[in-house]
């Protein structure tokens, strides 16, 4: 009984425990800092991201323009913060598309089985066997380069991984007795899928979606860098970087490409920290087997003995 309770305590904590890990705290605070800066920063700046200052073009960072200006005399800081909104919007929206499509198809494939499962799985294989960029570039050139097309392309090409994970989870869940019970009761399939199966997949979905945000942000940046994503005059971190395609800017005007590059790195790293912290919380962490450890660890440590004595 007492053991039961201690086990359950650990389980109930789950994600709540992840929130307290240093990794999660660092990641979450950096993400919130970036979000706050990008959302409220532009309101405080005197410049609109598209304002052209003809008197200072390609100016190095100075008191008026903290991060300098670009070739058209636009303020880099204003564009950086505005571009951040765009990058994050694309990242989150694309992942939303992925989660919706991936979860629905994965749950249906896993629950229905048979030809529906084969059909959906063959589709995911078709998506997965083509490399991302060639298809993304083709689609972008067919549909035109704008923000919603980027969201669509990244969402449309990226749902397969989540779909397979959800399917695998549902395959094992559908054999569990609480699902058998609802089937025996004669409840409709949609009820079972939504109320029982998808709800129980949420750790998988959450961890996967968090990590997918970083992939979506990077994909948006790459596409915009190639000129196929968010297009001028709108700013995004990717299309700000595209200026670094010129060797002159790359070598002599670092203020044009370091800030968006650094911003991408910070965002991706911190979101990854969150995702990693969450995924560690859901994967069981087993203590080492003594035999394969170095002999120095075979004896209990002083800390352990203290803990035993304190508890006794």
């Amino acid at each position, binding site marked *: *009984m*007492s*053991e*039961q*309770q*201690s*086990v*359950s305590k650990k*389980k*109930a904590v789950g994600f709540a425990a992840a929130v307290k890990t240093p990794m999660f705290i660092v990641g979450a605070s950096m993400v919130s800092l970036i979000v706050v800066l990008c959302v409220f920063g532009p309101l405080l700046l005197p410049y609109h991201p598209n304002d052209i200052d003809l008197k200072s073009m390609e100016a190095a960072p100075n008191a008026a323009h903290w991060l300098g200006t670009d070739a058209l005399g636009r303020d880099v800081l204003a564009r950086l913060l505005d571009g951040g909104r765009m990058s994050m919007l694309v990242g989150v929206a694309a992942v939303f598309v992925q989660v919706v499509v991936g979860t629905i198809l994965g749950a249906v494939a896993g629950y229905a089985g048979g030809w529906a499962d084969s059909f959906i799985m063959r589709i995911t294989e078709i998506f997965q066997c083509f490399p991302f960029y060639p298809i993304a570039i083709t689609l972008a050139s067919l549909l035109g380069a704008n923000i919603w097309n980027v969201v669509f392309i990244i969402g449309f090409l990226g749902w397969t991984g989540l779909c397979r994970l959800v399917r695998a989870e549902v395959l094992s869940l559908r054999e*569990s*007795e*609480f699902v*058998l*019970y*609802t*089937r*025996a*009761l*004669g*409840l409709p399939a949609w*009820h079972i899928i939504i*109320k*029982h199966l998808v*709800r*129980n997949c*949420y750790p998988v979905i959450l961890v996967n979606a968090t990590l997918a945000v970083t992939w979506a942000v990077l994909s948006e940046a790459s596409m915009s860098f190639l000129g196929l994503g968010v297009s001028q005059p709108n700013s995004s971190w990717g299309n700000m970087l595209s200026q670094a395609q010129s060797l002159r800017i790359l070598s002599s005007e670092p203020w044009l490409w370091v800030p968006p590059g650094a911003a991408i790195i910070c965002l991706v790293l911190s979101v990854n920290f969150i995702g990693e912290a969450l995924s560690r919380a859901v994967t069981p962490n*087993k*203590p*080492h*087997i*003594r*035999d394969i*450890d170095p*002999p120095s*660890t*075979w*004896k*209990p440590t002083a*800390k*352990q*003995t203290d*803990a*035993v004595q*304190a*508890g*006794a």
Partner: protein
Amino acid sequence: MSDGKLENAETVLEVNHLAVTFTGKETVHAVRDFSFTVHKGEVVAIVGESGSGKSVSAMSLLGLLPRNAVVSGDVKLDGKPLDVSYLSPEIRKIRGRQVSMIFQDPLDSLDPVFTVGEQIAEAVRVNDPKADKATVTARVIDLLKSVELPEPDTLRRKYPHQLSGGQQQRILIAIALAGRPRILLADEPTTALDVTVQQGILDLLHQISRSEGVGVLIITHDMGVVADIADQVVVVRNGALVEAGETVRLFHYPQNDYTRELLDAVPKTPLLGGSLGSDHAAAVVSATGATSAPAPAASDEQPVLKVENLSVSYAPRTPDVVHGVSFDINHHEVLALVGESGSGKSTIVRCVLGLAQQTGGTVMVDGVEYLKQRRREQTKTRHKIGVIFQSPMGSLDPRQTLAQSIAEPLIYALGVPRGDALAKAEELMDRVHLTRDMATRYPSEISGGQRQRVSIARAIALNPELLIADEPTSALDVSVQKDVIALFRELQRDLGFACLFVSHDLPLVASFCHKVVVLQHGQEVEYGPVESVFVHPTTDYARKLILSAPLADPEVQHERRRLREQAATA
């Protein structure tokens, strides 16, 4: 019977004040101040419920626990002190040599890519690195013979999956014996096996302890197993010793309240104990003369569940796994489906629930063949059936609170408004003796017995006429099982539902059910009232099944063993 011999036998293992603590985020004292002694040629049983620390204490002797376990205590093996406080060189030396261990799940313990002969040879070579190939093979065959396996020379070339569970466990015992151990630790060695196979393994362990002079330490939760094989019993609870003593004494005069509780929790079965065990001849005679008596309930009443000539397969176009099974259940009646694993018990349940492919025969609930009805009427009939499944963890959705789980059938099957359904759920929780403050908890926050009560509350929510219970207590400890069965009985008396009770636990069935169907390989071997089937079984299989269910009575078990040995030599 052999107690006299053991009085002056030498001590093989002496454990004093053993303590195991798991450190980490929270400190857990799994074992504290645990002492016992094993003599040469003696079987000692450590018995306790789950979480009592019985497996942990055995594993701590071999240094098999993970790094966060801190072990202390005085252990003497063959009179020599053994330092168990860390992974000492002595511990590494005794593993597989002086002390061997076998585990619960035999298929899990064998490597699937090597033949069993190679795996035994590996153990032989570890103990005798210089042995040449012929010597090793000879020794492997000897070992296979000593665990009473037929045709050792062909058997050793087989892979684990080609053997039955009982044979696999014998292979593991052979591996354990390869190092000529002084002591054999057996952690629930028969729990994963069927009763008829279990008896063979227990006989083998008993025989090994006597003939090879190995001390056997068997860890179990089953009082029947203890009564069958143990010379000495050690009862543990929450990691501490409760009572220790000689088996017959302990069963008849338990000193401690907890021991008494454990023994009381075992279903009492006057039906199974006497006639078959002590009077083997009577059973044989009855085989010719017995008749299946009619059902005890009123006969002109329409049965709640009538199954006729039922055949089932797992999926369309696959061979049948259940062949022509017939039975019926009336109001207030409990019918048990018994049989070994693979006999088709759960498949029949699934078919009655419409979850498996019915290939022949009829299933009638309240006189209607509901599975052939259209969806809407079918759903109405489904609401007359309540279901309880085996696994206390798996049968509740981990993301629903207890009240939500119980209210689900009310809301979605009857269309009761949410608020009313949740209120009704709380009433049902009273009904199954759970406190109302648990309503908002999740399944992971309560114990196995409590979860099973929630399942029962959910099953009776729709006031079913038929309750189907698929091994509802087999994952529970005996004392918890006793309470759950008591609750079950109470509800059945009050609500009067007919019940289809699936179980492999014959003493439980004998104490609780009215009629019984004995199944073997999907065939109905025997069907009738419990009294007539259990006292006068008409088929060899039913008799074997009934005799191999170990009873928590050392005298009956000793008598049965004597008769078996007699039969073997004769």
